[in-house]
C-alpha cells in the first residue's frame, strides 16, 4: 500500500515536472525569440551538421537509429547523407533529387512539383530555424530549460496527411536548431538530433554531386 502511494506520488511529481518544463511563451518572449532566430538564420550562407535520426514506432521495443551528415548551401543546395548503418544520400539541386543508394545512383526530376519544393523548403527551414510562416503553419511557442520550442501544425491538407506536427527545439543562447521532431501521429515520430554544427564554412559545390 505504502509503495503504491510512493509510486503514485513519484509519477505525479514526474508528470508535473514534465509540464513545468514546457511553459508557454508570452507575446513579448515570442517576438524576441523570433527575432533572435531570424537574425541568426539570415546570416547562414552555409551550414553543415552531423545528425542522429531516431525513428520511433510505438510497437517497437527500440527506436531505429540511423546517422550521417547534412550540408546546406544558399540558396537551395541540400545534401542529406546517411552513413550508418548504410550509405544512402539524397541531394536536392536545381529542381532535381539525386539519390545514391549504396553506390546505385538515380535522379528524379521534380521540376515544378509543388510538394517537393515544399519539402525542400521545409527541410532547410527546419535546420536553419527560419520557418515562422503563419500562412503555412499554426505555430505555438514554449520555453524549456536552456531551450526554446516551437510547434508547427501544417495548414495545408496534403502536407498534413504526411506530417501532423513539426517540433523544432532551439538552443537558447545560439538561437539555432538542435532537434527536429516530425510527428506522424501521437505514437509515431521521427526525431533528428543535430550536433557539431558548423556555420558559414567554405563548402564546395562538388559536395552536392552524387
Amino acid at each position: 500500500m505504502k509503495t503504491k502511494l510512493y509510486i503514485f506520488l513519484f509519477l505525479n511529481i514526474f508528470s508535473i515536472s514534465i509540464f513545468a518544463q514546457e511553459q508557454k511563451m508570452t507575446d513579448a518572449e515570442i517576438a524576441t525569440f523570433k527575432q533572435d532566430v531570424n537574425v541568426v538564420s539570415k546570416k547562414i550562407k552555409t551550414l553543415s551538421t552531423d545528425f542522429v535520426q531516431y525513428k520511433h514506432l510505438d510497437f517497437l521495443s527500440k527506436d531505429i537509429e540511423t546517422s550521417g551528415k547534412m550540408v546546406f548551401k544558399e540558396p537551395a543546395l541540400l545534401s542529406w547523407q546517411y552513413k550508418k548503418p548504410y550509405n544512402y544520400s539524397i541531394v536536392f539541386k536545381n529542381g532535381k533529387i539525386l539519390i545514391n543508394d549504396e553506390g546505385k545512383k538515380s535522379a528524379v526530376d521534380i521540376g515544378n512539383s509543388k510538394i517537393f519544393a515544399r519539402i525542400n523548403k521545409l527541410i532547410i527551414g527546419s535546420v536553419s530555424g527560419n520557418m515562422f510562416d503563419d500562412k503555412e503553419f499554426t505555430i505555438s511557442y514554449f520555453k524549456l530549460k536552456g531551450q526554446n520550442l516551437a510547434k508547427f501544425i501544417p495548414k495545408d491538407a496534403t502536407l498534413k496527411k504526411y506530417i501532423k506536427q513539426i517540433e523544432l527545439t532551439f538552443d537558447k543562447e545560439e538561437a539555432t536548431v538542435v532537434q527536429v521532431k516530425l510527428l506522424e501521429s501521437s505514437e509515431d515520430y521521427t526525431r533528428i538530433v543535430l550536433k557539431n554544427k558548423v556555420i558559414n564554412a567554405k563548402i564546395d559545390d562538388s559536395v552536392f554531386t552524387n
Partner: protein
Amino acid sequence: MQKSTIQFLLINCFLAIVLVSCGSVTKNYTPKKLDKTAVEVPYFADSKTDYVYKTNITVYGHELSGIFIAKKVNDTTHRVVFTTEFGNKLLDFEISEKTFKVNSIVSELDRKILINTLEEDFRLLLKNKYLIQEQFENGESVIYKSEDGKRDNYLFFSKKDQKLEKVVRSSKTKEKITITFTLENDKFAEKVVILHQNIKLKIALNYFKSE
C-alpha cells in the same frame, strides 16, 4: 465407334497435358517418405525482436527503397511497416494467417492490386508454421510440400545444414513467388529476397543493426 475413339484420344491428350503440367513444379524432384508432418520457420517468429531491414523494391524497372519493419505483436499477428529512409511511413499493415488490416497507406501506393500482392508476399514471408503433405528431394535439398488452398508452398531445406533456404509458392502448374533466405544463424535471416515469377517484382531485404 470413330466418334468415341476421337473422344478417347482427346481425353487422353487432355489427361497427358494435365499430368505434364501438374508435374512441372516437382518434376525434377524425387518423392520421399514423409519424415515430419509440420515445419516451423523461426526467421520472423520472435516477439522480442524488432525485425528491421533496408529494402530495395524493383517493380517493372522502377526502383524504390526504404525500410521494412516487422514485429510479432501477438500469437497470431505481425505488424508490418514500410518507411522511407527519412522515416515517413508509407504503409502500415497488421497481418495474420487469416486476417489483414491496413492501418495506413500513402495515397500513391493505395492500389488494390498492389495491396493484394503485398498481403500475399508478407503472409508467406511471416508464416511460421506449415503442415506438410508430401516430401521430395533433389541434389541439394529436402523439399516439403504444404498445401494452402489453391496454392502449394514448397519448403527447401539444405541437406548440408538442414536450414530453410527457400520457399516457393506455386499454382498446380507454375511457380509464382520465390523467397530465398541468407542466414546469419539458425533463427535469423540476414538477407531475404522475394521474387515474383508472373509479374516483374522483386523485394530485397537486408538486415541492419541499429547502433
